[in-house]
């Protein structure tokens, strides 16, 4: 099963591309092993940071004797500690994520995206966890960096099915309470929930100094509403019905969606959250690489 999941979600061409990529935390994260990312802890590592006056209790081996020779004072050398990243991939598996207008469903897309991110982070020795949720936390695998973690996560990703309603805000709050160390939170969702509950949840992470990336996955039909026949639409989460004439309202619909996405983008930006809208028609690897390249450019 893990092998099958591996083959399914990690296509060799994608893996080969990922080999040259890295997801480096832009903020300082609290890892527990040496890694790619800046740690809040300054210790005695490779990268020199500053000199500090010796304080009783400091190990004598850290005293810079050269400085003592010049200044006759005891200084100790401090180094910036580099640590690994704790990444949390949050995958929305609510019923609305199961929507597909013909090609890949949003959940399917999210599964591929999750697999790629997971692989990428594990490849760079980071620890990665996965949380699958709908209106509550359905599955949670804590972050680990062991090689076996990839198989565990891929198996979980493989078994995810869309169901139930969404309550993104509630889930984000719950996860934020669980996360004790700063890390990277990657949310993959269609965000078809009340923005008033989503954004506070995301801000909760930021408040705890986590870096947050939101992959907003949408089907083109959800953005365009370009159905060519009159139809009765059934809400996949609530089962509510509504008959309408898409031809007549598609313009307004598009405007409303655009406004909604613009609002999300703006408020994410205000909170220092990376907002990445992706359509299911865009190949997930291209969407991911594009984001990583952009992130790299921006430093």
């Amino acid at each position, binding site marked *: 099963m893990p092998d099958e999941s591996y083959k399914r979600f990690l296509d060799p061409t994608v893996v080969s591309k990922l080999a040259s990529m890295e997801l480096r935390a832009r903020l300082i994260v609290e890892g527990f092993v040496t890694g790619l990312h800046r740690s809040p802890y300054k210790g005695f590592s490779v990268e020199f940071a500053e000199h500090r006056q010796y304080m009783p209790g400091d190990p004598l081996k850290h005293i810079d004797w050269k400085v003592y020779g010049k200044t006759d004072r005891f200084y100790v050398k401090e180094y910036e500690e580099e640590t690994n990243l704790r990444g949390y991939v949050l995958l929305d598996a609510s019923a*609305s*994520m199961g*929507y597909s207008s013909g090609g890949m469903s*949003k959940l399917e897309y999210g599964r591929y995206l999750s697999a790629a991110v997971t692989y990428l982070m594990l490849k760079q020795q980071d620890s990665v966890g996965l949380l699958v949720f709908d209106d509550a936390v359905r599955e949670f695998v804590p972050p680990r960096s062991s090689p076996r973690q990839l198989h565990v996560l891929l198996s979980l990703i493989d078994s995810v099915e869309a169901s139930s309603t969404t309550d993104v805000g509630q889930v984000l709050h719950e996860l934020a309470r669980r996360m004790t160390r700063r890390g990277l939170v990657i949310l993959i969702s*269609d965000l*078809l929930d009340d923005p008033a509950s989503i954004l506070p949840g995301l801000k909760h992470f930021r408040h705890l100094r986590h870096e947050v990336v939101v992959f907003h996955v949408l*089907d083109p039909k*959800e953005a365009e*509403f370009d*159905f060519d*026949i*009159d*139809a*009765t*639409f*059934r*809400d*996949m*989460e*609530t089962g*509510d*019905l*509504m*008959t*309408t*004439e898409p*031809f*007549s*309202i598609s*313009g*307004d*619909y598009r*405007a*409303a*969606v655009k406004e*909604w996405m613009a609002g999300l983008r703006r408020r994410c930006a205000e909170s220092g959250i990376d907002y990445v809208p992706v359509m299911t028609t865009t190949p997930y690897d291209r969407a991911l690489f594009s984001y990583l390249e952009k992130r790299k450019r921006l430093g």
Partner: protein
Amino acid sequence: MDLTFLNAAFLLGALAALLPLIIHLFSRRRVETVDFSSLRFLRELERRKIRRIRVRQILLLIIRSLLILAVALALARPTLRGPLAAGGGHARTSVVIVLDDSASMSRGSASGESERDIFGLAGETALEVAGLLDEGDQAFLVTASYPARSELQGGTFSRGTLADALREIEPGALATDYSGAVAEALDLLSGARNLNRELYVIGDMQKSGWRDAVDARPSGGAPNPDDSPAGEDPGGADARPGGADRPTAFLFPVDGPVGNFAVVSASARRRYGGAEGLYSFTAEILNGSGRQAEVPVRLFLDGVQVGRAGVSLSSGERGSARFSASVDEAEWHRGWVELPADVFAADNRRYFVIPPLRRTEVLIVSGEAEERSGEAYYAERALDPAGEGRRFRTALIDASDLAAQDPARFATVVLADAGRLGDDAVEWVERYVASGGGLFVILGDRTDLRQWNSGDIPGSGGIRLIEPFESRSGVRLAPSGQGHPLLEGLVFGERLIDDIGVTRGFAADAPGVEQVLEFPGLGPALLLAGTPGDGSGEVAVLLTGVDREWSDLPRTGFVVPLFHRVVGEVSGLGALPRDVLAGGDLVVPIAGDGAGRVEVRTPDGGRLIPEHLGGSRAAVVVRDAVAPGIYEFVRNGAVVALGAVNLDPSESDLSQATREEISGRLGEIEHAFVDPGDDIEERVLASRRGRELWRVFVYVALALLALEMFLARQRAG
């Protein structure tokens, strides 16, 4: 105020206005249900837009229905008539004027104030109607005398042409046929150019003219292309071949009811048993005056009054006036029965002619021509005792030679116990009788019952021979019923003047056949069969033999007058030539011996060349003899024959059909009566002039179409 539709059939198209609704309901049931991730944005839009869309959809539905309705109404060509339409456009109209030119229209008016006949009043009315025609109106003219005729082939768009045609019409002597004329008019209108169609019936509304219900003839589709209009067609954009629109009919009774006395028939018979050339005349008189009256009747022969009689008749009653008069039987005679002048002069006279009594050629056909006794021998002796051929000239042949004879030579053929006839002989006799020849059949020893009962012999159809009977004591021959005119002078009480015993005869069953003599208690003895009026000759059958083994007939003198009268009767000498009614064909037998061309002098002073009829019996015919009176057939300056043409007696009944009766005859045709005092212009134009609303509906349809396109294209945003 009246809304009518010139093309009402298209109103059915209004049902199509339901189509958008049906499509809407149908498609609504078939709307697909689509799973969608979230209705969140749709709910937001519903508050703002979707309700508006529903309103727009309902609006579109209504507009599309109204659009179809407007198109259907435009095609149905609604026309608003009445005060509100005053000043509105003139609806192009096709009209047919049915003008009664029958004999009764030549009568004076009921009031007696006007010296003109009522046809003059009808003509004025027709011209007034013609004056109401406008540019683009099409007019037809049909005369209502039988048979109805269209006077303007293809109609005319010219008011002047119509007026000229109306002025040329004069009342004739023909009978009235409103039903036929209206049917002809409907036929013309079915191919008329304009869809607004009207029918004007102008006449005295004589009851006899409305005998039949109007039978709208099936439309022949497009008008005959050969029927080119007699006027200029100023557009003709309204052509619609084979239209089925019912026109509006206007009926103009030009005069009220009026009383009338009429001679409705005159007949004469040669009387037997009296002086030579003695005739009895019978005239039937109708009292249509509405009161009891003593009607004086006069008989004229060759212009001289020879009899006078009075007939007392109550209102509506018919009675007979009888006269007797002697004439020179060697000459033609013209005569008439006459009543005093009244409001309708044309039916106060009834004409007849008396042909001269000529020698009659008789062919006697025997089973055995050489026989010196028997039926053929006695028949020859009875008809031409001295062999001089004064009254009858006889020729005796064997039955086997019959087929070789020239049928035109003989006025009568006597089958005197001729026995079984060969097929060619039977065919000869059939042709002969069918062409008007008389046949006298004397049965006897050689009679073949099977051939007779097969019905092959002319006249045998209604007479079935049961079996021969034989009576040793003898059966006395007796007159049938009240005594047939043929036996005048030969009957004494209920017996014949001679006691004639019959020992053998044929019992026969002949229901409905005229009996002259009978075997008391056994059945008919002498029968006269024939179908008068169909042109075929009369057939007499004697059911006993003229032979001593059969009867006493050869021994008595009775056989001579009996045979003379029977042969005279079947050869057509006993009665006057058949009555010919105006408009019919007057046929007069004239030998075509090549002695010169025959010319006819008509009663109205005209001259014409009659048509010679072919066939075995030479005759000439005047086709469609419309003028009542005596027709003289002249050859080389000498009158060789006369013929009488009389008014159709139905014209003498001047009673008018009630409005209910006329309405019943017109059936579903919309109609209105216009009385003499009514303002014709007001009545007619109120109906004809109207505002055609089809343009309005077209504009409405276009406006609705534009609105529909605007709404349909507009998105909810």
